[in-house]
């Protein structure tokens, strides 16, 4: 759900895989306000939005054997966007949890636009930074909720010299 690069410094150029990971978790209203106006009149689909199931794998304690955790609903799409700079047009790809085709389509548009150097800085400000902020908020809320259930375990140190219950020396 949360990644280390979510809090990356804005001065560092962001890689495509990283912004795609951000876009896949971007809420619809943020996407709509940032790239809604770029929505093409007639989208050139390579792969129209589709919803299906994907098996999620996990590791116990993030280190153990891999096991199948369960299936999640995922929507995906790929489209070609005509931009000014590359003549062939760039391809935007997006995957997102859930069934919202609009969300995943806009994420794909954002992915395509971010590949255009002239649009990248603007989108960084209008979309990626708010998404990072949103994820940071979500994270702190979740941490607070978890914090309230925290239990402190502690043991009372034995008095020095007292024999063990079993009678063995420690």
């Amino acid at each position: 759900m949360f990644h280390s690069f979510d809090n990356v410094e804005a001065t560092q150029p962001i890689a495509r895989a990283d912004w795609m990971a951000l876009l896949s978790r971007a809420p619809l209203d943020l996407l709509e306000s940032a790239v809604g106006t770029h929505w093409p009149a007639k989208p050139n689909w390579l792969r129209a939005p589709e919803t299906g199931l994907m098996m999620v794998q996990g590791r116990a304690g993030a280190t153990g054997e891999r096991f199948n955790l369960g299936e999640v609903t995922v929507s995906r799409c790929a489209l070609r966007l005509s931009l000014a700079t590359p003549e062939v047009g760039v391809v935007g790809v997006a995957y997102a949890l859930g069934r919202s085709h609009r969300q995943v389509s806009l994420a794909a548009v954002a992915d395509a636009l971010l590949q255009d150097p002239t649009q990248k800085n603007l989108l960084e400000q209008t979309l990626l930074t708010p998404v990072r902020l949103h994820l940071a908020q979500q994270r702190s809320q979740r941490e607070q909720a978890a914090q309230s259930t925290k239990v402190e375990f502690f043991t009372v140190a034995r008095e020095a010299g007292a024999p063990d219950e079993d009678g063995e020396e420690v």
Partner: protein
Amino acid sequence: MSVQDLSQLGAGFSHEGFGSQAVFRVALDALSHPGRCMLVLHDAQTPLAGQPAAAALLLALLDSDCTLWLSPSLAGSDAASWLRFHTGCQLVEQADQAMFVWVAAGDEMPALDSFSQGSDNEPDQSATCVLDVAQMGVGTDSQKHWLLTGPGIQDVTHLAVDGLPADFQSQWAANHASFPRGVDLFLATQNQLVGLPRTTSIQLSGGL
């Protein structure tokens, strides 16, 4: 999974279900009427490499459970990434491990018996081969052509094919003889498809 360059990739069928069903219907008709030239109508943006009818056929037939072997000139081309992207099929290096085989027109066709033949118990496990050919049509008396007989053919079907290896007919005779094992064939041009199931036998007509 390797990263693909999607910038040159064409779209698949505009409607995945209807598009592939329409092509599947053509493939079904082609196999039930061996040797009859079938017109393939589709709206997919087929890759530059390979014959468009072959690409559309494979787009309709393949899914992520299928293994595909591509002849050398197709393997590195946009056709490979196009089929990988749209169907999720697995590309294999060895022709005998593939459930589907696609051979481009310029490439040397591996011997038919080098493909997966199925077994007597499971003849359906054999490979389905798609061969690109330069052109084909109903044979006329003035040219050498094939006389096809077998299930699905009332009397005899005439077929002239241009662009197959010279020893194709003897390979096909062996393939036909190994029934119930053996491969099924599709011949493809730009927009035509001909089905040659393993039950069809080929004779050469005289010509002038």
